[in-house]
């Protein structure tokens, strides 16, 4: 903490020359529909030893800016049409990156500027060993011999805290976990000791605990090597944890620039304020028991906590008992079943009418499989599911189809969950037609009503999904789910693909619909802060099992299970004065949920420490 203060005070009296200074950068893309200006006019500087966070929502031009610095933007069809990008070079003349020739640029890329990409699954070449990936850059930019590069590679892996580096060198990307892969990507970027490291959403695709590990790693490397970091992200909480200075971008323009404390405590621009207000913060809801809408400045809707009083007697709607779902793993010459993925293992919980139950956990914990098992989109192996007293498991095909009228689902990716060939009217009317709920004449009225409920203009009815933004599509998906008046809506990461401001709007919509229609939600999410905002009850999943269940306040204010605490500790806090991502964080990796055929896990034993607050004890 003190070290950081020293650093930021040093920034105020900056005497060093900047490593990079962008001066009125402008980048355009030629498309069929004409010229698109991705970056309009951006100027900022990055000084040695500091982290500058470039923050903005999708389409703000933050990635294009970073790609322009690497001159990679040309490979994606972009063109730098104006401005200068000056790079101070060690012992050489300052280069203007918007004009340098291809050879000079190649000697800068990976050597003086390193880059980390978002998706560790695709930014490593699957057919090369880790050694080959790591040493490629070294061989290109240095004159080291083969054995020296190998030593250097091992050194790099140690530096990014990868255990067993000699063994890892011989492995291929698919043999490593997502977190390990991202560490390799960082090691590659660090290979030639760049003076500037560009990190483009390096943790967006990662789980929260791995995100914390990677963020702390980048911080440590920055401290140890004195390099500058240009960190691109959409996540304000990550900004608060990482940045010395912040540059806020919106639609290709620079909105605001300042130190991290200035931006968070006294934002000047309306856009920055709105962006900050839309971020749900962990711990913000302490002491309340009901979900509460997010503040959206400028939005006309009155923000009031949802009443929780829905005029119906408090009554159990969904009861899940000992649900088990496994996926077979086939192997051998005869493609026989050799193992099972224990996706959902003996999970039990209940949801009351008008209540939101959240399932949280990291990828692979079985939370999505659990939701899909309840709808029987995947067939559970055993267990019981009662919706309003009706045994879902025992239903045959036709009965199940009609039972699904009462439980609907909203999926994660709003770009893939709407049929691109259907107009919105047909999309929303489809469930009505499927269940034969309305005659031709009524359908139009119902669709109009529902569109109003999800706050979309009725002129949208003739549109196709590609004509809508991500948030609007998710509203359509919600409309499609609630049009048949279900009692339960399962939302599988329904807001995680959306920008924060849009996420806030969609969450508020979901809460107001709950208030109005008495819906129950099974809210599946990896985002602890969002979960705290919307839920009445929370279940924490780990390796297919529920490790802790309780009311929102029980889980968030009094977490008991070790894993719940780990999760909470790893969530970045959106406040630069409370930096919780520090030094070297490392969490126990999640073991594999694959077990040989015939493996019977022991029955879970829960301890009830408070009314409704259950903790797994084995």
């Amino acid at each position, binding site marked *: 903490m003190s070290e950081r203060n020293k650093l930021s005070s040093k920034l105020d009296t900056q005497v060093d020359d900047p490593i990079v200074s962008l001066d009125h950068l402008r980048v355009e893309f030629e498309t069929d529909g004409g010229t698109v200006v991705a970056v309009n006019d951006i100027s900022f500087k990055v000084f040695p030893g500091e982290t500058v966070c470039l923050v903005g929502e999708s389409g703000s031009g933050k990635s294009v800016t970073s790609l322009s610095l690497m001159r990679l933007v040309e490979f994606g069809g972009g063109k730098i049409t104006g401005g200068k990008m000056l790079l101070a070079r060690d012992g050489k003349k300052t280069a203007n990156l918007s004009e340098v020739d291809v050879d000079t640029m190649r000697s800068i890329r990976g050597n003086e500027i390193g880059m980390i990409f978002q998706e560790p699954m695709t930014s490593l070449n699957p057919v090369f060993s880790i050694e080959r990936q790591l040493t490629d850059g070294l061989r290109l930019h240095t004159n080291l011999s083969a054995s020296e590069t190998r030593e250097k590679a091992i050194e790099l892996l140690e530096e990014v805290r990868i255990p067993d580096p000699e063994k890892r060198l011989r492995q291929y990307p698919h043999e490593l976990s997502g977190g390990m892969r991202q560490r390799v990507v960082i090691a590659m970027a660090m290979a030639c000791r760049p003076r500037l490291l560009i990190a483009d959403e390096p943790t967006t695709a990662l789980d929260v605990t791995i995100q914390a590990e990677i963020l702390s790693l980048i911080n440590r490397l920055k401290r140890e090597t004195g390099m500058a970091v240009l960190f691109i992200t959409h996540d304000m909480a990550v900004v608060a944890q990482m940045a010395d200075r912040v540059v806020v971008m919106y639609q290709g323009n620079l909105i605001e620039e300042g130190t991290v404390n200035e931006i968070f405590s006294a934002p000047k621009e309306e856009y920055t304020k709105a962006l900050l207000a839309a971020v749900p913060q962990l711990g913000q809801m302490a002491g309340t028991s009901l979900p509460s809408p997010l503040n959206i400045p400028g939005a006309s809707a009155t923000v009031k906590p949802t009443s929780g009083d829905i005029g119906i007697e408090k009554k159990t709607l969904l009861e899940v008992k000992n649900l088990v779902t496994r996926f077979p793993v086939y192997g051998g010459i005869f493609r026989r079943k050799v193992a099972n993925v224990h996706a959902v293992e003996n999970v039990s919980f209940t949801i009351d009418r008008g209540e939101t139950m959240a399932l949280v956990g990291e990828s692979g914990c079985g939370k999505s499989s659990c939701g899909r098992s309840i709808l029987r989109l995947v067939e559970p192996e055993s267990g019981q599911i009662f919706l309003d007293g009706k045994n879902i498991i025992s239903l045959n095909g036709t009965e199940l189809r009609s039972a699904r009228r009462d439980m609907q689902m909203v999926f994660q990716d709003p770009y*893939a969950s709407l049929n*691109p060939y259907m107009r919105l009217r047909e999309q929303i009317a489809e*469930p009505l037609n499927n269940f034969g709920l309305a005659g031709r004449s009524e359908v139009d009225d119902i669709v109009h009503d529902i569109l109003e409920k999800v706050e979309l203009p009725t002129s949208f009815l003739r549109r196709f999904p590609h004509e809508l933004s991500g948030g609007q599509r998710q509203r359509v998906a919600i409309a*499609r789910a609630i049009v048949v008046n279900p009692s339960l809506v399962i939302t599988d990461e329904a807001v995680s693909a959306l920008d924060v401001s849009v996420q806030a709007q969609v969450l508020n919509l979901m809460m107001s619909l709950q208030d109005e229609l008495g819906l129950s939600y099974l809210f599946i999410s990896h985002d602890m802060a969002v979960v705290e905002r919307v839920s009445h009850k929370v279940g924490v999943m780990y390796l297919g099992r529920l490790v802790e269940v309780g009311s929102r306040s029980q889980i968030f204010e009094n977490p008991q299970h070790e894993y719940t605490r780990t999760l909470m500790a790893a969530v970045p806090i959106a406040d630069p004065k409370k930096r919780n991502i520090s030094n070297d964080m490392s969490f126990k990796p999640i073991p594999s949920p694959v077990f040989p055929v015939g493996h019977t896990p022991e029955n879970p034993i829960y301890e009830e420490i408070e009314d409704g607050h259950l903790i797994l004890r084995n």
Partner: protein
Amino acid sequence: MSIFKKFLNFKGIIGITLVLCVVLIAIFAPLIIPPEFATKMDMRARLSPPNMAHWMGTDQLGRDLFYRVMLGARTSINIATSAVLMSLVIGLPLGLVSGYFGGRTDNVLMRLVDTLLSFPALLLALTISAVLGPNLQNTIIAIGIAFTPYLARLIRGEALRVAQMPYVEAARSSGATNSRLIIGHVLPNIMPVVIVQSTISLAFAILAEAGLSFLGLGTQPPEASWGLMIQASRDYLDRAPWTALVPGTAVALTVLGLNMFGDVLRDVLDPRSQS
């Protein structure tokens, strides 16, 4: 109106014009031109290059190539479209069902298709044609069946991909039946591939008919078809290249037109393309 506008670009205009010309020729040429024009031999004018009397030249028996191309159009187009339609009628449902349901259904259907695939298409058509006897209808059946496995395989792959899309799952969870899912959700989304593949198949079908005719199983001489004409020209390529060029150009223009038309049709049907 906007759909009509989508056709009006370079590709669309050329494609529609070519296809329209070929179709009009196929329909009207036999009504206007007396059939004996295509079969009338003139031994003194064998293999004559294009000239005033025969402005596209003549073949090895002195028959006028212009009339033969015009009159052969109906046979070629008829066989090609009927055969491709037939393979679509069988292959499309087969591929859809196989890809959508997967599992055992898929295994059984695809092993059947693989069996057919293991024979070269032409050999298969040849066998079928030989068994059924050489006439127009049997040629269509032979080519149709020979093309079916390729189409079925392709459609099955696409259906498999689309069936796993979240929008299909979303529709299923909102109560859609299997038939509704296949026809309403999977089919529209695989149409682009079906259209492109069908237009390519049409070209191959014209050539397949040529192969069968060459072996005496397709169109029977002295009737004219483009394939038969190309086959007949093989011995005279060095002396009289026009005997191959004339019917070859007819096939090439038809295929070009069909491909362009297919591309534009795919774009028109795709709501994501800009109008």
